[in-house]
């Protein structure tokens, strides 16, 4: 893999700049959040070049940003954040990705390790059995055409109405589980057909469901409000919009490639194909993207419901008694129209987060009452052998990153390299078991691709976000049971 030798100027301990003079056509500079020790790793692939390429997008404001979990993607780097002026700037489906509204949710419980230790094996096996995972997995929900239209329009609200979860859950989801502006007419028949059998499935790749233990609390007041203490058991779910989202992105990249010619936009990478926000192509994409985002929220909501049922069955106690409340649900592949302050003036922007999480501060009107004084919970999953984090959004994120922070650990090794150089799936399984982590995966080969060694250390990624002030730590979790797609 070819390394990147372009200019990276140190701004401060946690920020590095690619000046806008690096490439003709860059409209703004690039800024990568990282500490010095991470730079040599970041230079190992072409992710910084992608940060520079994103700076070509018409209407981009501030800087083309990358969070510390940055790695080489396609078009945008993963960990990329870009804001464009609304409505004259562009929207780029590549700035959202194929897995639209891939995201994470975290549930608390009243449980402690001692309550589940004996049942952990059974919990993992039953979760694996009840929640379809793996390549091309199909769910048990039978959707008709009329019903899927409602899923696309109503997201998690549809799921709750159908009995998958509680009304209180909706309050704890970004956008309250329903992205406005969704128009199912803008979603192709192909995308609908891909989506119909897959609602309520985890999928494959890096998607997972994890039973976790709260290992450390950094902010006791926030943790208390969220119902967490050291030793608490939590449940984390990471998945997205499955084939429906992938098809929406595939379809709109074709339309956007035509739009690029039509509007005379010059880009260094076709995967960045985009259209003005006020063009028909731009509006249609946002309406279709909102549908896929809603599908993803319904998907995570259905999975949550089944996970709660499994806990009830195995532990012989009600969901209420187990205290399995949703802490929050975040989208980390999405584009949203938001209001931000630039040079003292409020402006409407389209914020693309491609492997980045919204991190709004306390007082933001987009947060539910419970988090008004705290700030938005940010969920950062690590790899299956290390940690995951619960963070909070900050004012500084609002000022510096359009209210964004990291989304995970970030890969450092390709999938084939992980399989070639690392442990086999079977070895990983027994290694994790010896450390008290039970893993059940749909594919052992897939497990080898997801080895801890294939990822950056999430602890380092979070340290940068905390150090740079774009989020602050509340709790660190470690996995006990992992269900992998």
């Amino acid at each position, binding site marked *: *893999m070819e390394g990147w030798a372009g200019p990276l100027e140190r701004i401060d301990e946690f920020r590095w700049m690619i000046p806008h003079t690096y490439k003709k056509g860059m409209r703004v500079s690039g800024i990568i959040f990282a500490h010095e020790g991470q730079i040599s790793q970041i230079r190992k692939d072409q992710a910084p070049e992608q940060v520079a390429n994103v700076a070509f997008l018409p209407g981009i404001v501030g800087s083309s940003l990358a969070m510390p979990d940055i*790695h*080489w*993607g*396609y*078009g945008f780097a*993963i960990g990329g954040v870009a804001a464009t002026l609304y409505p004259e700037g562009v929207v780029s489906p*590549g700035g959202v*990705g*194929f*897995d639209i509204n891939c995201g994470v949710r975290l549930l608390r419980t009243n449980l402690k390790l001692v309550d589940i230790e004996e049942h952990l094996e059974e919990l993992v096996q039953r979760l694996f059995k009840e929640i379809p995972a*793996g*390549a*091309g997995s199909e769910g048990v929900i039978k959707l008709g055409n009329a019903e899927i239209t409602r899923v696309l329009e109503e997201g998690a609200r549809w799921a709750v109405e159908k009995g998958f979860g509680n009304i209180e859950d909706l309050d704890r989801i970004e956008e309250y589980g329903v992205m406005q502006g969704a128009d*199912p*007419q*803008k*979603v*192709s*028949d*192909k*995308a609908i*057909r*891909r989506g119909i059998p897959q609602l309520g499935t985890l*999928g*494959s*790749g890096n998607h997972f469901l994890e039973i976790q233990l709260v290992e450390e609390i950094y902010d006791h007041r926030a943790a208390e409000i969220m119902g967490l203490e050291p030793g608490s058991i939590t449940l984390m779910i990471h998945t997205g919009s499955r*084939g429906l989202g*992938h*098809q929406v992105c*595939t*379809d*709109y*990249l*074709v*339309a956007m*490639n*035509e*739009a690029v*010619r*039509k509007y005379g936009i010059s880009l260094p*990478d*076709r*995967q960045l194909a985009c259209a003005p926000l006020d063009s*028909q*192509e731009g509006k*249609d*994409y946002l309406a*279709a993207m909102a549908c896929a985002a809603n599908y993803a929220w319904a998907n995570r909501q259905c999975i949550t419901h089944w996970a709660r049922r499994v806990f009830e069955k195995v532990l012989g106690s009600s969901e209420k008694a187990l205290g399995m409340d949703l802490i929050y649900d975040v989208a980390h592949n999405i584009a949203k129209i938001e209001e931000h302050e630039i040079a003292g003036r409020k402006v409407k922007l389209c914020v693309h987060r491609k492997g980045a999480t919204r991190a709004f501060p306390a007082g933001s009107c987009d947060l539910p009452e419970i988090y008004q004084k705290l700030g938005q919970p940010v969920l950062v999953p690590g790899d299956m052998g290390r940690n995951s984090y619960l963070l909070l959004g900050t004012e500084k994120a609002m000022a510096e990153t359009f209210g964004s922070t990291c989304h995970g650990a970030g*890969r*450092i*090794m*390709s*999938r*084939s*390299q992980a399989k070639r150089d690392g442990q086999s799936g079977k070895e990983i399984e027994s290694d994790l078991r010896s450390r008290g982590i039970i893993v059940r995966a749909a*594919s052992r*080969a*897939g497990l080898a691709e997801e080895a801890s060694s294939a990822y950056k250390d999430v602890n380092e990624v979070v340290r940068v976000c905390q150090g740079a002030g774009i989020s602050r730590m509340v709790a660190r979790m470690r996995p006990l049971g992992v269900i992998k*797609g």
Partner: protein
Amino acid sequence: MGYEVFDHTADIGIRVWGESLEDLFETAGRSLLVIAAPRILVQPIQHRHIMVEADDLEALLVNWLSEILYLLYVESFFPVTITAHINGISTEIHPDIEDSDRSEAPSRGPKGGAPSESGPGLSVEGVLSGEIMDRERRSLLEVEIKAVTYHLLKVERLDCKGRADRMKVPDQRAVWFAQFILDI
């Protein structure tokens, strides 16, 4: 003809070569299937016809591979043989394809802009033979390929390139070369 997989941090990259453009498209299609399910066994007893269009070869390859992914994941159709035929579309050959027809198409989904005026459109027709996978065979799908990306995408003729470019492929008879990255 042949292909190789190359490393890309989050995804899988593929380089393909062939003696003809058809050969290149067929091999590219097969490479996807080997990645998706390396251990599956199916017979070429059912057939599917597909046709996709684009204004340039690179987009044509993405659309072709996306169509194969659709057959695989939505129709559960796993092809073992793929034959491709590539046409250049012009209004003389397809007088029914006009801008107005496209923009007024009743189908849902994205409405593309007018086709580019920079050159004739291209199409590829494919005949794919294989089988609909039953549940057991579907469980042999090891990798879910989310999509074919445009990042680092290339389709090029090698015979008009210098020797350095020809060295990219191990088969010296190859005339066409393609490179693409899959989102996994």
